[in-house]
Structures are given as C-alpha cells and as structure tokens.
C-alpha cells in the first residue's frame, strides 16, 4: 500500500524540520515514482509545512514529477556540447518514434521522455540515459534500434 511506504519513509525522520523536506520528497519519489497528493499532505503534516509550500518547492525543481513515468524513462541531455553535436535531431527522432512530447508518458506506459540539464558526460555527446543507463555518441539512426531493444526487454520480463 503506497501510503504506508510514504509513512515508512517519514518515520525515519522523527522530529524533522523544514530542511529535511527535499530529501524526503526525493525518497518518496524514488520509492513511488512520482509525488501523489496524499503523500504531499502527509509530509506536510509531519514537518508542519503547509501544502502550498510543499507544492511550491516541488514544482520549482526539475526532478519532481506529479505523474508517473514510463517503464523506460528516457532522459535526453540538453547541454551545450550535446546541442552542438546534434542532440536536437536525436530528440526529434525519439519524439517521432515514441509519439509523445517531452514531459509525457506513452499511453501504454512503456516510454516517457524528459529533457534534462547537462548530465556531465560532455566528452561523449550526444548522450541520453534510459533508466539511468547512459548511451553515448548517439545518432538519430541509433534511436529505433535502442527502442526496439527496450520493447524486447519489456516482453521478456512480462
């Protein structure tokens, strides 16, 4: 039950104050995949922070989501080096193949795209990461191949 997993996380921060807000939000998102309204209210009660505040903090940072991501979450690096090496075309290829805009998830819940700030692997631009795994020096033609292997993986695991 998801509420109890949030409660478990909160229980590890007894007597916590405002400065624990972001770490708690990060842990909850790590565990649940995104921030649900109930979770935010629970966290607010525990820390004594109003819901509007928590919402204000969470919407400020790129990291926090209020909707679930796909099974394969693709992050495309938006850094300078990647841009100069053609990341835009890679992104366009992804958008075409998957069929959703950045920030959204496919209807079957398989893929979601997110454009992120520089990952820090500039020597290997353009870079994308799928579920945390990096893929470097990507060209638009590599994209369908990568996506296909993801689809295969999804079928195997079931």
């Amino acid at each position, binding site marked *: 039950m998801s509420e109890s997993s949030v409660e478990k996380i909160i229980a590890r921060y007894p007597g916590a104050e405002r400065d624990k807000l*972001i770490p708690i939000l*990060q842990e909850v998102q790590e565990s649940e995949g995104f921030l649900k309204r109930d979770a935010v209210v629970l966290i607010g009660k525990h820390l004594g*922070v109003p819901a509007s505040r928590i919402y204000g903090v969470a919407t*400020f940072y790129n990291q926090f989501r209020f909707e679930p991501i796909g099974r394969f979450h693709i992050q495309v690096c938006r*850094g300078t080096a990647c841009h100069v090496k053609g990341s835009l075309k890679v992104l366009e290829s992804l958008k075409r193949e998957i069929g959703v805009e950045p920030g959204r998830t496919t209807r079957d819940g398989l893929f979601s795209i997110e454009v992120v*700030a520089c990952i820090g692997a*500039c020597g290997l631009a353009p*870079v994308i990461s799928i579920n945390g795994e990096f893929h470097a020096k990507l060209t638009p033609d590599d994209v369908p191949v990568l996506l296909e292997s993801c689809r295969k993986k999804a079928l195997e695991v079931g």
Partner: protein
Amino acid sequence: MPIILDRCCEKCSHSQAEPCPMAIECLLDGPLCHESPACSEARNTWKSKVQRSGLSQPVIFAGAGTCGLGAGAGSTIQAIREFLDTRSIPCTIVEVGCIGLCAVEPIVDIMLPGRARVSFAGVTHDRVCALLESMLERGEVPEDMALCQFTGTGETWKGVPLFSEHPFFGPQTRWVLENCGTMNPESLEEYLAAGGYRAFAVTLRTRTPESTCDIVEESGLRGRGGGGFPAGRKWRFALNTPSGSKYVICNADEGDPGAFMDRAVIEGDPHKLIEGIAIASYAVGANKAYIYIRAEYPLAIQRLRKALEQAENQGILGTNIFDSGFDLNIVIKMGAGAFVCGEETALIHSIEGHRGMPSPKPPFPAVSGLFGKPTVINNVETLANVPGILNNGPGWFRSAGTENSPGTKVFALSGKITNTGLIEVAMGTPIHDILFSMGGGIPDGKAFKAVQIGGPSGGCIPDGHTDLRIDYESLGEFGAMMGSGGLVVMDEDTCMVDVAKFFMDFIQRESCGKCIPCREGTRRLLEILNAITRGYRDETPEQALERFRGIVNLERLGQVIRKTSLCGLGQTAPNPVLSTLRWFRDEYEAHIFERKCPAGVCTGLLTFSIDEDACRGCTLCAGKCPTGAVKGARKSPHYIVTSECIGCGACLEVCPFDAVRVH
C-alpha cells in the same frame, strides 16, 4: 578495514579510544612513539602492497567513471571478467575514475609484474579478447591500442609514448587530477599510502584556524566555480564573524552545461575533496559541512557516500578527530534539478528546504548564510586544491599560473574538438595550446570558429584571438568569463546566433523567476532571437517589424538585465548574446536582413533545392518529405515547392546521390 584505528603493537600508545594526533603521519613515517624494526617493516610491506610495487600477478585498471560507462566500460569490464574466468588467469581488476581523455573511452590500464603500467584506448568489449591475449598471455603490447605508459611503475615498454610526453597529457599540470584515473577511488588505503590526509592531520595539530586562513590567502587560491573570489579571504570573513555555529558548503552542483570536472574529481578522488572540506571547516570554525551535489551524478554520489563512510570509520571525521578537540560531520545533500542552485544564496535556500531563489547580497553568506549563520561556500575544484597547498606551501601553489591567477585550472573540452575530455593546465596557458595541441584540433578538417568559455554566463573567443591566455584578468579584459571552465568548441558548421539562442533558452528555463529583469527580460531576449531565426514562411508583417526593432532593443535590454538582476544568473544572462553579437555581427545581420543562416543550421532560414543534373528520380526524398513538398515523377528530376517546405532536411539526409542543395 583496520588501518588507523589499530595500534601496530603493544608498545604503541595509539588506540581507538585515545587516537594519537600523529596517527596519519605514523602510517608512513612511523613507528613514532616507539622503536621497532618489525613495525617499520610492516608499514613498508603495507605501503608496497597498496601501491602495487612488487606485484606477483597482473592488475587491470578499468576507467569506470560516468564517461567510461557511457562509452561501454560496463560491458568491457564484464568481458574482462569472463576472459579471466574462462582462462583461469589470476588477475586483479580495479575500477578507477576518469583520466580525462573521454574521446577514447573505454580506457583500460594493464600492469604486468615488474613492467610499467600501460593505458589502452578504445577498449570496447569486442576488443578485450585481443588485448588480454596479447598482454596477459604473450606479454606483448598491442601498439594499435596503446595510449601511453606511466614511468616509475616498472620497466618501460618500447614504442609506447610516456604519459609525460603524450600530446594530451604531457603539457598538463595535474595537481587536482593527480589521482583521477590512476588511483582506486574506493580505497582509502591507496589515498593514505600516497600521503593523503596528512595535510589535514598536520593542520589540526600544528596550525590555528587563523594561520590556516593565512596560508590559503597567501597562496592566492581563487574560487574555481566562476566567481574567482580569493578563498582565504572568504574563509577569514567567516572566521571573524562570531557565532555559535558555522558551516562549510561544498558546491558540487556543477550546473554549467559543458562542465564535468567536478564530477570527475568526485568520481575519481573523493578523499581529496573530503580532505579539502575538512581543512576548510577547521580554518573557519565549522563543525558541520554539507556537500551539495546534483542528483544527476548518481555514481559520484555513490563514491562520495562510500568515501565518507570510510573516513568516519577511521576517525578522520567525527568527534575529537585525532585528539584535536575538533569535531566535523559531513552531510550529503542532493540537488533536485535547478541550475540556479549553483548560486550561493539559492543553494543555501535549497538546503534549508525552500525554493532555490537567491537573496540580496549583502549580507554575504560568510557573515549570514545557512540558517542565518556564517557559511563558506566553495566549489569542488577550489577545495580539491587545498590539501596540496597545505602540504607544499603557498610558494608551491604560486609556482604555476600567473601573479593574479596562481595555480592550475581544470578545463572541460567538448564540442567540435578531437580530444574531448578534461585537462588541467597552469593558469595563463594560451587557448591555442589547449585547443590545438592538447585538444588535437578540429575534427573532419573543419575550420575553427570560436570557443565558448564559461557556459551560459560566459562569452566566446573567436578565431584570431586564440593567443589569449586563460586567467581571470586576461579573460575579463577580453570580455569573456572563466566560469567553471567549460570550453565548448565550435566550427564553421555552428551558427553563432543559434548558440546564443540555445544559451538564452537554457537561461530562460533555469531562471528562478523571482526578479523582474531576469524573468521577463530574458524571455524578451529569447523572443528576439527566435524572431531572428524564424523562417519567413511563419512570419507576419508585425513579426517582421518586431524582428528589426528587436535588435535595437537587444543591447539596451541586455544592459539593464546585467545591471539590475538579483543574482549572477541574471547578471550574466545577456553575455552569450552580447558576446556573439560583438564578434559575429555579420552572422546576425545575415539572419536579420538577408534572411539567411550562413552556417546552415537555422532550419527556418534554409532553402532546399534539388540539383536537376544530379537527381536520378529515385523518389526516396519524396517518400521522406513530411509535407509532400517534393514533387516529381519516377526516373525524372524532382523539385521542391519552397512554400510547402518546412526545412526539416529529411530529403538531404536520405538522398544517395547528393543531389539536395541547401542555401
């Protein structure tokens, strides 16, 4: 892992309960409290073992930093393990950080007993077999893969360049990066055996916070995150502000796109950073330090966590460190994805659990910062320089660099350059050397156009000015900014207006939105740039008017944004635009007045046509065209209806006969 906490024998006065203040030095120089050849011998044995002199079996070092992993180092390591298993070859595998030549990752080093350690480049998993067969089974170096070898590690090989003579590595002054790529970042023992934490221990025992600040101030170390503010002076402000609690924060947010040196340091040599933080905390009087690291660096966070744990276990961090009476606790705080949190006051607010919006300065954090207490915020690279300065003295630090910018700087080379990666050079090195000797020049025979320095806050240095020396003053006079040291190289195929637009787009996304000049001003700047790069097909007459007027307003608006924004992000936001406008005005004018993009990047301004003579009528282009703008019958020359063309370039990509022309 018992090293420091253990006594070496019954005669030793050191114990876990009462740690000896000389414990660190004793590891290498001891025994200090008693005479014992056996104990001396034990130390030598330990040091040899840790530093791998006198090996009995080969050691393989695999570059497993984020760059390496991104290039496939994971599969490489897997392949190596399989090879060793199936052939039952006894051999140790050590994962190390980035040595800096990212362009040729995955990099694997092999050290055979008694022979020098050799680095091999481009070792993807399919080349593992050939490499290992050659080295481990035949004892031969496959020269096509050899990158360089390290002297002082064994008998050298013929025909393999020395590290110190390699065109990329040789000219570098590797102080901050000295252990990256060669030392096991997860081994505290290796760090100690190389003299690590000695500076901290000696400082605790023999120096006061004041004298520590003195030393750092004398060295002339300036903030390496971009501000360039003298570190020692900042420490002194905090030291001199009376308060019950003080804090040190290490800024590992590294938000500049194109910068990854902090990541490499943390992944490759986390203990050096921790030592720097510890010394800074002592100098300032802080008992709690934070490392604010961006969440996008999971491997770095992992390495840092492990290193902190090791340091705590060995009493290097905690209470009454080495019986000095000094307590220090270091906590990791993960950023949540906001470039503006690299700004000091925004970073502080983020740690406090608020939106990362900056506050007015004065008051400065050194006087009133985290939770209202004196706080010193330093960049990773700044802190990584500190142990060296305390070990070797300010004079040593000043032996490299210039009068006003002593020491070294780590630069991240990326973009259109052959040797992408990290280099550390003395301040004052001419850019020409960085780009064309170490960097290996522009690939594919293209012409160099400009190098962007300082990320979205910086400016560009165009062709013809590469004799410029990289130090704070020279760059400032030139009108550029050091920033964090990210160098993005651009060639003739890069459109400078597009680059300005890219940076402005980045700034707009990352602007916190608090102050009006930055929030609204950068939005208007971006709109003007969009107007310039927008295609005539999409433009209304009002928008055309906007386009002309926009240029007039660009400079005026840029000035106001620069002068009135609340924080550095806003204050430097107009820089990329103003800098490219200054050096590449002709490109801007081509976009505005001739409606052309000379570099062929801004798709809205490109006209595509098909060369009748070259076209064979294969219809591949017509098939790919998303709007049906390509017309023509089979086997006869095709043509493009310009009014329907959206400039996507799909036809150009697919044409096998090179018949598509771009203007």
